[in-house]
């Protein structure tokens, strides 16, 4: 149990969330639940990215009292994955809003959230 570090725990959490998200995307029939599966997938990827950027026993990449200004390179974690995740969260939010809008439009058209009732593209 001694090698169960912070980055390993977050990495496992992220992987489990990704798998739950994919399972939800593939098995659920309700359109809202499919959107929720997508969001879980998205969140899991974010957690994996942040945990990969973590460096042992270091603090957030913000220079304040806890960081020595002359030794920043040895006291902060990697800022690049965090910046990328910041970008990805905002885009994920926009995409989720867009998907929910499509679901709303589909419901207004057919009065149904069941994906089996939308078989126009099925051959």
């Amino acid at each position, binding site marked *: 149990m001694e090698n169960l570090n912070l980055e390993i725990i977050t990495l496992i959490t992220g992987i489990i969330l990704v798998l739950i998200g994919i399972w939800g995307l593939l098995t659920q029939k309700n359109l809202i639940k499919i959107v929720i599966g997508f969001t879980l997938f998205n969140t899991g990827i974010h957690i994996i990215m942040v945990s990969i950027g973590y*460096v042992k026993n270091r603090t957030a990449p913000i220079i304040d009292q806890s960081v020595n200004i002359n030794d920043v390179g040895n006291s902060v974690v990697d800022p*690049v994955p965090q*910046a990328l995740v910041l970008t990805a969260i905002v885009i994920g939010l926009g995409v989720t*809003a867009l998907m929910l*809008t*499509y679901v709303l439009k589909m419901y207004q058209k057919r009065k149904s959230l069941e994906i089996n009732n939308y078989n126009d593209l099925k051959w």
Partner: protein
Amino acid sequence: MVKNSLIFIVLIGFAVLLADLFVGFNGNTDLNTLANHYAVSGPEEVGSANLVTAVVVTYRGLDTLGEVTILFLAAAIVSFLLKVEAGASRNRKLRSTSEILDTASKILVPVIFLFGIYVFINGHLSPGGGFQGGAIIASGLVLMLLAQPAKEVGHKLITLVESISGISFVLIGVAGVLFAAGFLDNKLLSLGKFGTIFSAGVIPVIYIFVGLKVGAELSGIITNLQENQNEA
């Protein structure tokens, strides 16, 4: 049966892909070269105490411009799809709200807006920034709309704030080409004293515009969804 086993195979495939990542990962003990450069030279080159802000706004400023564009596109498509004819939203069936929510929202909404503004103005000093501040402002709007569902939020104001801040963001970038080293260059304004609010060159200005733009876009999405709630 075939379908279930196919789903199982896909899940196993993803698990194997991610397990590979997990097995080879023992945690980092050092920054890589690029991250080390950002961490060591970031404070002098950019002057921002928050290194994530330095990466987002200056080192990868063009990415942020693209990101704001994607968010704008999503908000534009949502408002295009959920357009309500004028007057049609008047006959919505609204549930009455509780006394507690109504009173609490009157006290909390201005505080939440103020906190959002604080977060994006201090984006170069503390955790936070334009995107987070904008999201906080939009969450204040959600509380307001939950408490007063009949309230009409002005679409004209939202569009105006969004367009002006978006154009200003691009103009700051172009001004960087004309008066400083390049597009979205940070040294357009002087770097100031490290760790104070008027520091880090043009970062606070850009983050104020990003915050206003993100807040306006998310508010637009929320307002559109809210006006559609009883159309279905």
